């Protein structure tokens, strides 16, 4: 009940604030980058713009995962696949924009096709010279894959661990497929050497700033939309499916439809994130399909706090910032730091940063309330103080299985 209250009240305000901050960042950073001279202390260097721009697309991906994992209980270990598909759609558009400026000067074929002796453009590359077509594909390719995959998987009632593993199989299969040069997506090298996007040079500071602003705004927008979804009837149903799928079904809802809906929306968001990511990093290659990348997305979400919308964004920014920082200052040991962080977060902050923050505040408020009640009625029991060493156990024991998968040796309540 208490959590419920916090979710509706606190999180809504938090979402608004975050969206506003993002919108402000979307305006401020480009302005500080472009308008101020590099000598100014407030100048944002190009390096930071590119870096943070990349993080923002990661944050969007983490937010997408939060929608399915945090609210619908579907742990996807394959969200990197949707991200990469969106990225490839954008990459194909960017490749076609190169035109005859490629090294071989072929006006139609991308360079990698020329030196592998391809004679004509494969059919699935048609249309990508138009931005509107690419934009549709950015939404359609991941969305359609998620819809088809979800339609079959959820109707067959594939749940829990099985679902996680087959999403992993999905992204792994795509990884192997995109590695094949015969597929016509540039093989291991992927798509690179981009020149223009919508007629602007991708390397120009203005374009970079524009892409940064677009990423920040897209994230803000996505945050508002997901927030609206989670507060709608569908959002309530998602949570219901997450917490007790069978009961939801017995009441008369169709959990599979709700899941397919959430999964598809989430995949589309991931695809848009990928599309924004590609022009900023300048390359898309099958490495993005690697199962390890998808697991990392799960980690960001968990670090920030799943089911909190703002949490995954903070998690993605923090973990990636840490990664960039550590790979620079501790190149030999940063994996210890990263690995240690994952263990520490799961052990000590099981609900992530935002989740832990919320429960801490909730317990404080509870304690205050109870203290007040106690003052009024002397016979009340003393308040529990969960904010000690292991809030984990205290919080978890009486609750039903946590969101996401369960199973394992813990006793399962019959549904």
């Amino acid at each position: 009940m208490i959590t419920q209250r916090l979710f509706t009240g606190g999180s809504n305000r938090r979402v608004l604030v975050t969206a506003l901050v993002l919108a402000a960042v979307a305006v401020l950073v480009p302005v500080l980058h472009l308008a101020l001279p590099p000598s100014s202390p407030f100048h944002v260097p190009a390096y930071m713009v590119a870096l943070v721009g990349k993080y923002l697309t990661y944050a969007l991906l983490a937010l997408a995962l939060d929608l399915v994992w945090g609210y619908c209980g579907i742990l996807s270990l394959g969200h990197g696949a949707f991200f990469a598909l969106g990225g490839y759609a954008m990459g194909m558009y960017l490749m076609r924009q190169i035109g005859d400026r490629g090294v071989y000067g072929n006006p139609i074929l991308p360079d990698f096709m020329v030196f592998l002796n391809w004679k004509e453009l494969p059919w699935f590359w048609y249309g990508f010279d138009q931005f509107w077509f690419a934009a549709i594909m950015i939404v359609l390719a991941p969305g359609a894959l998620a819809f088809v995959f979800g339609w079959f998987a959820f109707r067959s009632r594939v749940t829990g661990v099985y679902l996680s593993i087959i999403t992993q199989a999905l992204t792994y299969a795509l990884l192997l497929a995109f590695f094949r040069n015969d597929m016509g997506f540039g093989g291991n090298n992927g798509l690179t050497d981009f020149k223009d996007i919508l007629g602007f040079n991708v390397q120009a500071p203005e374009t970079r700033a524009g892409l940064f602003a677009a990423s920040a705004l897209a994230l803000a927008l996505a945050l508002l939309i997901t927030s609206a979804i989670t507060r709608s009837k569908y959002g309530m149903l998602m949570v219901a499916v997450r917490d007790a799928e069978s009961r939801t079904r017995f009441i008369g809802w169709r959990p599979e439809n709700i899941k397919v809906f959430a999964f598809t929306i989430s995949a589309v968001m991931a695809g848009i994130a990928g599309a924004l990511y590609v022009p900023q990093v300048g390359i898309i290659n099958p490495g993005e399909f690697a199962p390890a990348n998808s697991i990392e997305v799960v980690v960001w979400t968990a670090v920030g706090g799943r089911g909190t919308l703002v949490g995954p964004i903070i998690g993605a920014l923090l973990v990636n910032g840490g990664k960039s920082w550590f790979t620079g200052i501790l190149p030999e040991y940063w994996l210890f730091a990263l690995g240690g962080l994952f263990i520490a977060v799961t052990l000590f902050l099981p609900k992530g940063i935002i989740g832990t923050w919320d429960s801490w505040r909730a317990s404080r408020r509870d304690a205050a309330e109870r203290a007040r009640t106690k003052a009024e009625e002397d016979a009340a029991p003393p308040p529990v103080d969960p904010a000690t060493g292991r809030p984990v156990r205290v919080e978890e024991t009486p609750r039903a299985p946590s969101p996401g998968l369960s199973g394992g040796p813990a006793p399962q309540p019959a549904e």
Partner: protein
Amino acid sequence: MRGMIATLAKRVSGAALAGLMMAGAATAQEDTIKVGILHSLSGTMAISETTLKDVMLMLVEQQNAKGGLLGKKLEAVVVDPASDWPLFAEKARELISVNGVSAVFGCWTSVSRKSVLPVFEELNSILFYPVQYEGEESQRNVFYTGAAPNQQAIPAVDYLMNEEGVERWVLAGTDYVYPRTTNKILEAYLESKGVAAEDIMINYTPFGHSDWQTIVSDIKTFGSAGKKTAVVSTINGDANVPFYKELGNQGVKAEDIPVVAFSVGEEELAGLDTAPLVGHLTAWNYFQSVDTPENAEFIAAWKEFTKNPDRVTNDPMEAHYIGFNMWVKAVEKAGTTDSDAVIDAMIGVSVPNLTGGYSAMMPNHHITKPVLIGEIQADGQMETVWETTGLVVGDEWSDYLPDSKDLIADWRAPMSCGNFNVATGKCGGKGVN
């Protein structure tokens, strides 16, 4: 509530910014010349690239012992791009714009090079790329100190054809751009030498392929057509160990079906018992076993630097050795570390290589190298069985691919073009035709 969150957000972003600024500030002293080292120290490529990071540290240390460069000490800046290709671009940007390095030595895979290319172009810095690669590239900011296909693959095939009388060819490779391109070039080359299409079998496997039973048995079958057969292997790194183990166990002997590999060096062989592989071939531009004073000195210094008498040396290490010395010489010639001046000064610079000759930087940003064919020995070393009489100039645009045969690269002043088309007389590939 709102206040608190805003504070938290501020604090978080502040901390991140401060961290990055600190990284920038700590290294922003001007009394050293910085050299960036961009090699993966974790992830799948760490196995190959960590050695290159070590050799660069050793070279920098040696140069400092000699008194540094332009009166300043050299300082190596090491970062870990973690075998993550977009991270390579990010780290390259960090090295150049945050740490202010004068040149970067790094990358191994083609995709990592492709990923950093736009960054080097945009920020006008210098990259030394030490690994044999597929060619089909010449970029103003990149110096390719590894072998182009004509410095490795074609001489190896010539050797097999002339010395071993091979008539039937298996081109086996990992499915990525280097094997694909190399095999395309070899296929065209073999056909130009009159090898029939049915005498060429091409096979691709995924990265890290570990179950080679079927493929080795296919090779045996292909080899039982009454003609002398050889395997040209562009199988990448890790997958080689299980491949060679399977070859040894299935009894494919070098006397019957020799395998010539372009990606197997001393480092890869350190991971397996080479006794069953004696006689299989590799083609490189350097072997640890090469008997020259320069090489003996280099190996001794390397073993001392790593404090490990069993450490081996390999071809990409020599490439870094050559590239680093070339860079030092070019900086001395230019009198500055300014990118444009160094890039211009690089062309024509000639330094001793470890095989007893001199390697020179050509106008196409590739270098001259001898080509050595070696047979694997029982102790994991290669023994040179054949070498080119002179040095071979790296050919960036292959003459055996229809779309690149008209292209040349020349970065000297009047032309300054990486893909000049001699047929149309225009820079920029075919031009609009």
